[in-house]
Protein backbone atom coordinates (compact mmCIF):
# COMPACT_ATOMS: atom_id res chain seq x y z
CA UNK A 1 0.00 0.00 0.00
CA UNK A 2 1.35 3.39 -0.99
CA UNK A 3 1.28 5.97 1.77
CA UNK A 4 2.21 8.92 -0.42
CA UNK A 5 -1.10 9.24 -2.27
CA UNK A 6 -3.30 11.92 -0.76
CA UNK A 7 -7.04 11.32 -0.98
CA UNK A 8 -8.54 13.55 -3.67
CA UNK A 9 -11.07 16.06 -2.42
CA UNK A 10 -14.51 14.51 -2.01
CA UNK A 11 -16.93 14.98 -4.89
CA UNK A 12 -20.68 15.24 -4.24
CA UNK A 13 -23.63 14.84 -6.59
CA UNK A 14 -21.89 12.43 -9.00
CA UNK A 15 -23.94 10.04 -11.14
CA UNK A 16 -22.55 7.15 -9.11
CA UNK A 17 -23.62 8.70 -5.82
CA UNK A 18 -27.09 9.62 -7.17
CA UNK A 19 -27.81 6.29 -8.88
CA UNK A 20 -26.08 4.39 -6.06
CA UNK A 21 -28.54 5.87 -3.56
CA UNK A 22 -31.41 4.24 -5.48
CA UNK A 23 -29.51 0.92 -5.54
CA UNK A 24 -29.64 0.96 -1.73
CA UNK A 25 -33.46 1.16 -1.84
CA UNK A 26 -33.87 -1.97 -3.96
CA UNK A 27 -36.16 -4.69 -2.71
CA UNK A 28 -37.91 -2.12 -0.55
CA UNK A 29 -41.14 -0.17 -0.20
CA UNK A 30 -41.34 3.63 -0.36
CA UNK A 31 -44.48 4.96 1.32
CA UNK A 32 -46.44 8.20 0.90
CA UNK A 33 -46.89 10.00 4.22
CA UNK A 34 -48.52 13.32 5.08
CA UNK A 35 -47.52 13.74 8.76
CA UNK A 36 -44.51 12.93 10.98
CA UNK A 37 -46.70 10.37 12.79
CA UNK A 38 -47.40 8.54 9.53
CA UNK A 39 -43.68 8.69 8.69
CA UNK A 40 -42.89 6.93 11.97
CA UNK A 41 -45.51 4.26 11.28
CA UNK A 42 -43.94 3.71 7.85
CA UNK A 43 -40.42 3.50 9.29
CA UNK A 44 -41.53 1.08 12.00
CA UNK A 45 -43.22 -1.08 9.37
CA UNK A 46 -39.91 -1.40 7.49
CA UNK A 47 -40.25 1.21 4.71
CA UNK A 48 -36.90 1.98 3.03
CA UNK A 49 -37.92 5.61 2.49
CA UNK A 50 -40.93 7.88 2.80
CA UNK A 51 -42.42 10.31 0.30
CA UNK A 52 -43.46 13.49 2.13
CA UNK A 53 -46.50 15.15 0.63
CA UNK A 54 -49.46 17.27 1.71
CA UNK A 55 -52.22 15.02 0.40
CA UNK A 56 -52.05 11.44 -0.83
CA UNK A 57 -53.03 11.07 -4.50
CA UNK A 58 -56.50 9.72 -3.61
CA UNK A 59 -57.23 13.00 -1.79
CA UNK A 60 -55.70 15.10 -4.57
CA UNK A 61 -58.21 13.41 -6.90
CA UNK A 62 -61.09 14.04 -4.52
CA UNK A 63 -60.22 17.67 -3.74
CA UNK A 64 -59.31 18.77 -7.25
CA UNK A 65 -57.60 22.13 -7.80
CA UNK A 66 -53.89 22.69 -8.36
CA UNK A 67 -51.60 20.29 -6.48
CA UNK A 68 -48.21 21.80 -5.55
CA UNK A 69 -45.03 21.12 -3.59
CA UNK A 70 -45.69 20.59 0.14
CA UNK A 71 -45.18 23.13 2.93
CA UNK A 72 -41.47 23.19 3.96
CA UNK A 73 -42.51 22.96 7.62
CA UNK A 74 -44.30 19.71 6.93
CA UNK A 75 -41.32 18.29 5.00
CA UNK A 76 -38.86 19.31 7.73
CA UNK A 77 -41.12 17.79 10.38
CA UNK A 78 -40.97 14.49 8.54
CA UNK A 79 -37.19 14.72 8.02
CA UNK A 80 -36.79 15.18 11.78
CA UNK A 81 -39.18 12.36 12.65
CA UNK A 82 -37.39 9.50 10.85
CA UNK A 83 -33.87 8.28 10.08
CA UNK A 84 -34.73 6.65 6.74
CA UNK A 85 -34.40 8.71 3.53
CA UNK A 86 -37.10 11.30 2.82
CA UNK A 87 -38.30 12.07 -0.70
CA UNK A 88 -40.59 14.91 -1.76
CA UNK A 89 -42.43 15.87 -4.94
CA UNK A 90 -41.99 18.85 -7.22
CA UNK A 91 -44.30 19.69 -10.12
CA UNK A 92 -43.08 18.69 -13.57
CA UNK A 93 -40.84 21.48 -14.90
CA UNK A 94 -41.03 23.48 -11.68
CA UNK A 95 -37.31 23.67 -11.05
CA UNK A 96 -37.73 26.30 -8.33
CA UNK A 97 -39.80 23.89 -6.25
CA UNK A 98 -36.96 21.42 -6.82
CA UNK A 99 -34.42 24.04 -5.67
CA UNK A 100 -36.46 24.56 -2.51
CA UNK A 101 -36.63 20.80 -1.85
CA UNK A 102 -32.87 20.52 -2.31
CA UNK A 103 -32.30 23.37 0.15
CA UNK A 104 -34.51 21.57 2.70
CA UNK A 105 -32.19 18.57 2.48
CA UNK A 106 -34.57 15.95 1.09
CA UNK A 107 -32.76 12.82 -0.12
CA UNK A 108 -34.60 12.42 -3.43
CA UNK A 109 -36.87 14.67 -5.50
CA UNK A 110 -39.80 13.11 -7.34
CA UNK A 111 -40.65 15.25 -10.39
CA UNK A 112 -44.17 13.95 -10.31
CA UNK A 113 -47.21 13.82 -12.55
CA UNK A 114 -49.34 13.48 -9.40
CA UNK A 115 -48.87 17.22 -8.90
CA UNK A 116 -50.21 19.67 -11.49
CA UNK A 117 -47.53 20.22 -14.18
CA UNK A 118 -45.89 23.66 -14.19
CA UNK A 119 -44.47 23.39 -17.70
CA UNK A 120 -46.16 21.58 -20.57
CA UNK A 121 -43.03 21.43 -22.72
CA UNK A 122 -40.00 21.03 -20.48
CA UNK A 123 -39.09 18.85 -17.55
CA UNK A 124 -36.53 20.19 -15.05
CA UNK A 125 -32.81 19.92 -15.85
CA UNK A 126 -31.92 17.38 -13.21
CA UNK A 127 -28.16 17.61 -13.77
CA UNK A 128 -28.32 21.08 -12.19
CA UNK A 129 -28.96 19.51 -8.78
CA UNK A 130 -26.92 17.66 -6.16
CA UNK A 131 -30.09 15.95 -4.94
CA UNK A 132 -31.00 12.99 -7.16
CA UNK A 133 -34.33 12.77 -9.00
CA UNK A 134 -36.82 9.98 -9.58
CA UNK A 135 -39.26 10.40 -12.47
CA UNK A 136 -42.27 8.50 -13.75
CA UNK A 137 -42.52 6.77 -17.12
CA UNK A 138 -45.18 4.86 -19.03
CA UNK A 139 -42.80 3.44 -21.64
CA UNK A 140 -39.11 3.00 -22.42
CA UNK A 141 -38.73 6.17 -24.51
CA UNK A 142 -40.15 8.29 -21.72
CA UNK A 143 -37.88 6.59 -19.16
CA UNK A 144 -34.77 7.21 -21.28
CA UNK A 145 -35.73 10.85 -21.92
CA UNK A 146 -35.95 11.39 -18.18
CA UNK A 147 -32.57 9.69 -17.67
CA UNK A 148 -31.14 11.91 -20.41
CA UNK A 149 -32.33 14.91 -18.36
CA UNK A 150 -30.50 13.53 -15.31
CA UNK A 151 -33.02 11.28 -13.53
CA UNK A 152 -31.16 8.77 -11.32
CA UNK A 153 -34.14 6.47 -10.75
CA UNK A 154 -37.31 5.64 -12.71
CA UNK A 155 -40.69 4.49 -11.50
CA UNK A 156 -43.35 3.16 -13.82
CA UNK A 157 -46.25 5.59 -13.41
CA UNK A 158 -49.33 3.47 -13.00
CA UNK A 159 -52.37 5.55 -12.06
CA UNK A 160 -51.80 7.12 -8.63
CA UNK A 161 -54.62 7.36 -6.12
CA UNK A 162 -56.79 4.68 -7.72
CA UNK A 163 -55.86 1.63 -5.64
CA UNK A 164 -56.06 -0.19 -8.97
CA UNK A 165 -52.92 -1.98 -10.12
CA UNK A 166 -53.93 -2.33 -13.78
CA UNK A 167 -52.07 0.74 -15.07
CA UNK A 168 -48.98 -0.10 -13.01
CA UNK A 169 -48.93 -3.50 -14.70
CA UNK A 170 -49.47 -1.96 -18.14
CA UNK A 171 -46.60 0.53 -17.78
CA UNK A 172 -44.10 -1.88 -16.24
CA UNK A 173 -44.85 -4.53 -18.88
CA UNK A 174 -44.48 -1.90 -21.58
CA UNK A 175 -41.03 -0.85 -20.33
CA UNK A 176 -39.85 -4.44 -19.86
CA UNK A 177 -41.18 -5.53 -23.26
CA UNK A 178 -39.47 -2.67 -25.06
CA UNK A 179 -36.17 -3.50 -23.34
CA UNK A 180 -36.55 -7.17 -24.30
CA UNK A 181 -37.14 -6.13 -27.91
CA UNK A 182 -33.99 -3.95 -27.90
CA UNK A 183 -31.96 -6.95 -26.76
CA UNK A 184 -32.73 -8.63 -30.06
CA UNK A 185 -31.59 -5.70 -32.21
CA UNK A 186 -28.19 -5.54 -33.91
CA UNK A 187 -26.12 -2.35 -33.93
CA UNK A 188 -27.61 -1.14 -37.21
CA UNK A 189 -31.11 -1.36 -35.82
CA UNK A 190 -30.34 0.52 -32.60
CA UNK A 191 -30.07 3.87 -34.44
CA UNK A 192 -33.58 3.51 -35.81
CA UNK A 193 -34.76 2.26 -32.43
CA UNK A 194 -33.40 5.42 -30.80
CA UNK A 195 -35.31 7.49 -33.36
CA UNK A 196 -38.53 5.55 -32.70
CA UNK A 197 -38.08 5.82 -28.95
CA UNK A 198 -37.23 9.55 -29.23
CA UNK A 199 -34.33 8.88 -26.87
CA UNK A 200 -30.54 9.44 -27.10
CA UNK A 201 -28.74 6.68 -29.01
CA UNK A 202 -26.11 6.19 -26.25
CA UNK A 203 -28.78 5.43 -23.65
CA UNK A 204 -30.64 3.11 -26.02
CA UNK A 205 -27.41 1.22 -26.73
CA UNK A 206 -26.52 1.03 -23.01
CA UNK A 207 -30.00 -0.31 -22.18
CA UNK A 208 -29.77 -2.90 -24.96
CA UNK A 209 -26.41 -4.10 -23.63
CA UNK A 210 -27.47 -4.17 -19.97
CA UNK A 211 -30.86 -5.72 -20.66
CA UNK A 212 -32.24 -3.27 -18.10
CA UNK A 213 -32.47 0.47 -17.56
CA UNK A 214 -29.14 2.08 -16.59
CA UNK A 215 -30.85 3.21 -13.35
CA UNK A 216 -33.04 1.47 -10.76
CA UNK A 217 -36.65 0.83 -11.83
CA UNK A 218 -39.44 0.83 -9.24
CA UNK A 219 -43.17 0.49 -9.79
CA UNK A 220 -45.77 3.02 -8.63
CA UNK A 221 -49.40 4.00 -8.97
CA UNK A 222 -52.05 1.57 -7.76
CA UNK A 223 -50.46 -0.92 -5.35
CA UNK A 224 -52.98 -1.56 -2.52
CA UNK A 225 -52.27 -5.10 -1.27
CA UNK A 226 -49.29 -7.36 -0.47
CA UNK A 227 -50.12 -9.42 -3.56
CA UNK A 228 -50.11 -6.27 -5.71
CA UNK A 229 -46.60 -5.44 -4.48
CA UNK A 230 -45.38 -8.99 -5.11
CA UNK A 231 -46.95 -8.93 -8.58
CA UNK A 232 -44.97 -5.83 -9.52
CA UNK A 233 -41.78 -7.43 -8.20
CA UNK A 234 -42.39 -10.63 -10.16
CA UNK A 235 -42.99 -8.52 -13.26
CA UNK A 236 -39.52 -7.04 -12.79
CA UNK A 237 -39.85 -3.95 -10.57
CA UNK A 238 -36.86 -3.60 -8.24
CA UNK A 239 -39.09 -2.18 -5.51
CA UNK A 240 -42.44 -0.44 -5.09
CA UNK A 241 -43.90 2.94 -4.21
CA UNK A 242 -47.14 2.74 -2.26
CA UNK A 243 -49.16 5.92 -2.11
CA UNK A 244 -52.74 6.07 -0.96
CA UNK A 245 -52.89 2.28 -0.51
CA UNK A 246 -51.55 2.31 3.04
CA UNK A 247 -52.92 5.33 4.83
CA UNK A 248 -56.30 5.13 3.06
CA UNK A 249 -56.79 1.60 4.39
CA UNK A 250 -58.39 0.39 7.63
CA UNK A 251 -55.19 -0.57 9.50
CA UNK A 252 -52.21 1.30 8.00
CA UNK A 253 -49.49 -0.08 10.33
CA UNK A 254 -50.49 -3.67 9.68
CA UNK A 255 -50.95 -3.19 5.94
CA UNK A 256 -47.62 -1.37 5.64
CA UNK A 257 -45.73 -4.19 7.38
CA UNK A 258 -47.55 -6.77 5.25
CA UNK A 259 -46.62 -5.03 2.00
CA UNK A 260 -42.97 -4.87 3.13
CA UNK A 261 -42.94 -8.62 3.80
CA UNK A 262 -44.55 -9.45 0.46
CA UNK A 263 -42.08 -7.20 -1.36
CA UNK A 264 -39.07 -9.05 0.10
CA UNK A 265 -40.57 -12.55 -0.35
CA UNK A 266 -42.33 -11.69 -3.62
CA UNK A 267 -41.73 -15.17 -5.00
CA UNK A 268 -43.02 -17.09 -1.97
CA UNK A 269 -46.84 -17.44 -2.14
CA UNK A 270 -47.05 -18.89 1.37
CA UNK A 271 -45.46 -15.81 2.91
CA UNK A 272 -47.62 -13.54 0.73
CA UNK A 273 -50.70 -15.48 1.90
CA UNK A 274 -49.71 -15.04 5.56
CA UNK A 275 -49.02 -11.36 5.00
CA UNK A 276 -52.45 -10.94 3.41
CA UNK A 277 -54.47 -12.29 6.36
CA UNK A 278 -56.73 -10.01 8.42
CA UNK A 279 -55.51 -6.70 7.08
CA UNK A 280 -58.88 -4.99 7.43
CA UNK A 281 -60.35 -2.76 4.74
CA UNK A 282 -58.23 -2.06 1.66
CA UNK A 283 -58.70 1.34 0.07
CA UNK A 284 -61.87 1.38 -2.00
CA UNK A 285 -60.25 1.96 -5.36
CA UNK A 286 -61.34 3.36 -8.70
CA UNK A 287 -61.93 1.56 -11.98
CA UNK A 288 -59.45 3.15 -14.34
CA UNK A 289 -61.59 2.68 -17.46
CA UNK A 290 -64.23 5.00 -15.99
CA UNK A 291 -61.60 7.66 -15.27
CA UNK A 292 -62.01 10.71 -17.56
CA UNK A 293 -58.99 11.45 -19.75
CA UNK A 294 -58.29 14.73 -17.91
CA UNK A 295 -58.04 12.89 -14.59
CA UNK A 296 -55.42 10.43 -15.82
CA UNK A 297 -52.19 11.55 -14.19
CA UNK A 298 -50.11 9.15 -16.29
CA UNK A 299 -50.80 11.33 -19.35
CA UNK A 300 -48.94 14.21 -17.73
CA UNK A 301 -45.29 14.38 -18.80
CA UNK A 302 -44.05 13.14 -22.15
Amino acid at each position, binding site marked *: *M*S*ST*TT*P*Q*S*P*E*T*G*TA*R*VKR*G*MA*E*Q*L*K*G*GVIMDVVTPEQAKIA*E*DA*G*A*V*AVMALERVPADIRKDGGVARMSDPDMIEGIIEAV*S*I*PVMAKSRIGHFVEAQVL*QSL*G*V*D*YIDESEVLTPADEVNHSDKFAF*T*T*PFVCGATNLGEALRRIAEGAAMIRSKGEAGTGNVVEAVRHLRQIKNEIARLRGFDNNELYAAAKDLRAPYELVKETAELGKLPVVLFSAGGVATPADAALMRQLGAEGVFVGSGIFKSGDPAKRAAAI*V*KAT*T*FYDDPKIIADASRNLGEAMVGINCDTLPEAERYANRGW
Partner: protein
Amino acid sequence: MTSPVIGVLALQGDVREHLTALAVADAVARPVRRPEELAEVDGLVLPGGESTTISKLANLFGMADPLRERIAAGMPVYGTCAGMIMLAEKILDPRSGQETFGGIDMIVRRNAFGRQNESFEAAVEVAGVEGAAVEGVFIRAPWVESVGARVEVLAEHGGHIVAVRQGNALATSFHPELTGDHRVHALFTEMVRTAG
Protein backbone atom coordinates in the same frame (compact mmCIF):
# COMPACT_ATOMS: atom_id res chain seq x y z
CA MET B 1 -8.50 -24.62 -5.48
CA THR B 2 -12.28 -24.73 -5.14
CA SER B 3 -14.22 -21.49 -5.00
CA PRO B 4 -15.84 -20.69 -1.66
CA VAL B 5 -19.61 -20.29 -1.53
CA ILE B 6 -20.43 -16.76 -0.39
CA GLY B 7 -23.97 -15.62 0.32
CA VAL B 8 -25.39 -12.10 0.13
CA LEU B 9 -28.11 -11.33 2.65
CA ALA B 10 -31.00 -10.58 0.27
CA LEU B 11 -33.67 -9.08 2.49
CA GLN B 12 -33.23 -5.63 0.96
CA GLY B 13 -30.49 -3.52 -0.62
CA ASP B 14 -27.92 -3.62 -3.41
CA VAL B 15 -27.72 -7.42 -3.51
CA ARG B 16 -27.15 -7.83 -7.24
CA GLU B 17 -24.04 -5.61 -7.25
CA HIS B 18 -22.46 -7.71 -4.49
CA LEU B 19 -23.30 -10.97 -6.29
CA THR B 20 -21.59 -9.62 -9.42
CA ALA B 21 -18.52 -8.39 -7.51
CA LEU B 22 -18.15 -11.74 -5.71
CA ALA B 23 -18.45 -13.68 -8.96
CA VAL B 24 -15.65 -11.53 -10.44
CA ALA B 25 -13.60 -12.26 -7.30
CA ASP B 26 -13.96 -15.97 -8.11
CA ALA B 27 -16.49 -16.92 -5.44
CA VAL B 28 -19.71 -18.88 -5.95
CA ALA B 29 -22.20 -16.18 -5.01
CA ARG B 30 -25.83 -16.69 -4.04
CA PRO B 31 -28.61 -14.70 -2.37
CA VAL B 32 -29.59 -15.73 1.18
CA ARG B 33 -33.02 -14.97 2.65
CA ARG B 34 -33.77 -18.04 4.79
CA PRO B 35 -31.98 -19.86 7.66
CA GLU B 36 -31.58 -23.02 5.55
CA GLU B 37 -29.86 -20.96 2.83
CA LEU B 38 -27.54 -19.43 5.43
CA ALA B 39 -26.50 -22.90 6.57
CA GLU B 40 -25.12 -23.63 3.09
CA VAL B 41 -22.67 -20.75 2.70
CA ASP B 42 -19.02 -20.43 3.79
CA GLY B 43 -19.21 -16.67 4.22
CA LEU B 44 -21.76 -13.88 4.00
CA VAL B 45 -21.98 -10.31 2.72
CA LEU B 46 -24.33 -7.87 4.42
CA PRO B 47 -25.12 -5.42 1.60
CA GLY B 48 -25.88 -1.74 1.57
CA GLY B 49 -29.52 -0.83 2.10
CA GLU B 50 -31.60 0.56 4.93
CA SER B 51 -30.32 -0.85 8.21
CA THR B 52 -33.68 -0.35 9.97
CA THR B 53 -35.48 -2.31 7.25
CA ILE B 54 -32.89 -5.09 7.13
CA SER B 55 -32.93 -5.40 10.92
CA LYS B 56 -36.73 -5.66 11.03
CA LEU B 57 -36.94 -8.21 8.23
CA ALA B 58 -34.16 -10.31 9.77
CA ASN B 59 -36.11 -10.49 13.05
CA LEU B 60 -39.46 -11.15 11.34
CA PHE B 61 -38.19 -14.04 9.27
CA GLY B 62 -36.08 -15.77 11.90
CA MET B 63 -32.74 -14.78 10.38
CA ALA B 64 -31.35 -12.63 13.20
CA ASP B 65 -30.50 -15.38 15.69
CA PRO B 66 -28.98 -17.86 13.20
CA LEU B 67 -26.92 -14.97 11.80
CA ARG B 68 -25.69 -13.92 15.24
CA GLU B 69 -24.75 -17.51 16.03
CA ARG B 70 -22.81 -18.08 12.82
CA ILE B 71 -20.98 -14.77 13.07
CA ALA B 72 -20.09 -15.49 16.71
CA ALA B 73 -18.85 -18.94 15.62
CA GLY B 74 -16.43 -17.30 13.20
CA MET B 75 -18.19 -17.37 9.83
CA PRO B 76 -16.42 -14.77 7.63
CA VAL B 77 -18.68 -11.80 7.08
CA TYR B 78 -18.35 -8.51 5.19
CA GLY B 79 -20.68 -5.54 5.65
CA THR B 80 -20.90 -2.41 3.49
CA CYS B 81 -22.63 0.75 4.76
CA ALA B 82 -25.87 -0.63 6.29
CA GLY B 83 -24.00 -3.94 6.57
CA MET B 84 -21.30 -2.20 8.62
CA ILE B 85 -24.02 -0.91 10.96
CA MET B 86 -25.38 -4.45 11.34
CA LEU B 87 -21.93 -5.73 12.39
CA ALA B 88 -21.48 -3.12 15.13
CA GLU B 89 -21.78 -4.13 18.77
CA LYS B 90 -23.41 -0.76 19.38
CA ILE B 91 -25.11 1.96 17.29
CA LEU B 92 -25.34 5.57 18.38
CA ASP B 93 -28.98 6.71 18.26
CA PRO B 94 -30.54 3.43 17.06
CA ARG B 95 -34.15 3.52 15.85
CA SER B 96 -36.70 1.80 18.03
CA GLY B 97 -36.39 -1.94 17.72
CA GLN B 98 -33.22 -1.80 15.66
CA GLU B 99 -30.90 -4.62 16.63
CA THR B 100 -27.55 -5.49 15.14
CA PHE B 101 -25.93 -8.88 14.55
CA GLY B 102 -22.65 -7.87 16.18
CA GLY B 103 -19.27 -9.31 15.23
CA ILE B 104 -17.03 -6.26 15.42
CA ASP B 105 -16.27 -4.50 18.70
CA MET B 106 -17.09 -0.99 17.48
CA ILE B 107 -19.55 1.83 17.95
CA VAL B 108 -21.00 3.12 14.67
CA ARG B 109 -22.73 6.41 13.96
CA ARG B 110 -25.48 6.12 11.35
CA ASN B 111 -25.63 8.66 8.47
CA ALA B 112 -22.55 10.24 10.07
CA PHE B 113 -21.34 11.84 6.83
CA GLY B 114 -24.76 13.48 6.33
CA ARG B 115 -27.82 13.14 4.14
CA GLN B 116 -27.89 12.40 0.41
CA ASN B 117 -26.76 15.93 -0.57
CA GLU B 118 -23.53 15.26 1.34
CA SER B 119 -22.99 11.81 -0.20
CA PHE B 120 -19.65 11.76 -2.01
CA GLU B 121 -16.89 9.90 -3.79
CA ALA B 122 -13.29 9.99 -2.60
CA ALA B 123 -10.15 7.91 -2.96
CA VAL B 124 -9.48 5.76 0.11
CA GLU B 125 -6.28 3.92 1.02
CA VAL B 126 -7.28 0.54 2.43
CA ALA B 127 -4.68 -1.51 4.33
CA GLY B 128 -4.44 -4.96 2.78
CA VAL B 129 -5.56 -3.79 -0.69
CA GLU B 130 -2.53 -3.56 -2.95
CA GLY B 131 -2.02 -0.87 -5.56
CA ALA B 132 -3.91 2.35 -6.14
CA ALA B 133 -6.40 3.77 -3.64
CA VAL B 134 -9.91 2.33 -3.66
CA GLU B 135 -12.67 4.50 -5.14
CA GLY B 136 -14.85 5.10 -2.11
CA VAL B 137 -18.55 5.71 -2.80
CA PHE B 138 -20.11 7.05 0.41
CA ILE B 139 -23.93 7.21 0.42
CA ARG B 140 -25.57 8.58 3.57
CA ALA B 141 -22.65 6.69 5.02
CA PRO B 142 -21.90 5.73 8.62
CA TRP B 143 -18.50 6.04 10.27
CA VAL B 144 -16.93 4.17 13.12
CA GLU B 145 -16.93 6.28 16.25
CA SER B 146 -14.62 4.04 18.30
CA VAL B 147 -13.16 0.52 18.24
CA GLY B 148 -12.07 -2.06 20.79
CA ALA B 149 -8.51 -3.35 21.16
CA ARG B 150 -9.00 -6.37 18.87
CA VAL B 151 -10.19 -4.28 15.93
CA GLU B 152 -7.79 -3.38 13.17
CA VAL B 153 -8.47 -0.03 11.46
CA LEU B 154 -7.98 -0.47 7.70
CA ALA B 155 -8.92 2.99 6.42
CA GLU B 156 -9.85 6.49 7.46
CA HIS B 157 -11.39 9.43 5.63
CA GLY B 158 -11.40 12.98 6.96
CA GLY B 159 -10.16 11.75 10.33
CA HIS B 160 -12.94 9.16 10.68
CA ILE B 161 -12.63 5.38 10.58
CA VAL B 162 -14.30 3.97 7.44
CA ALA B 163 -12.93 0.40 7.17
CA VAL B 164 -12.20 -2.15 9.92
CA ARG B 165 -11.46 -5.81 10.45
CA GLN B 166 -11.76 -8.03 13.49
CA GLY B 167 -10.80 -11.64 12.85
CA ASN B 168 -13.08 -12.93 10.12
CA ALA B 169 -15.33 -9.86 10.10
CA LEU B 170 -14.74 -7.00 7.65
CA ALA B 171 -16.68 -3.75 7.27
CA THR B 172 -16.53 -0.62 5.10
CA SER B 173 -18.57 2.61 5.26
CA PHE B 174 -18.37 2.81 1.48
CA HIS B 175 -19.62 0.67 -1.40
CA PRO B 176 -16.91 -1.09 -3.46
CA GLU B 177 -19.75 -3.06 -5.11
CA LEU B 178 -20.89 0.11 -6.92
CA THR B 179 -17.54 0.46 -8.68
CA GLY B 180 -15.82 -1.80 -11.19
CA ASP B 181 -12.96 -2.29 -8.71
CA HIS B 182 -13.54 -5.56 -6.87
CA ARG B 183 -10.28 -5.78 -4.87
CA VAL B 184 -12.07 -5.51 -1.52
CA HIS B 185 -14.34 -8.40 -2.56
CA ALA B 186 -11.23 -10.33 -3.58
CA LEU B 187 -9.77 -9.65 -0.11
CA PHE B 188 -12.96 -10.95 1.50
CA THR B 189 -13.09 -14.00 -0.77
CA GLU B 190 -9.53 -14.78 0.31
CA MET B 191 -10.60 -14.43 3.96
CA VAL B 192 -13.37 -16.97 3.37
CA ARG B 193 -10.99 -19.32 1.55
CA THR B 194 -8.44 -19.14 4.38
CA ALA B 195 -11.10 -19.63 7.07
CA GLY B 196 -12.42 -22.73 5.31
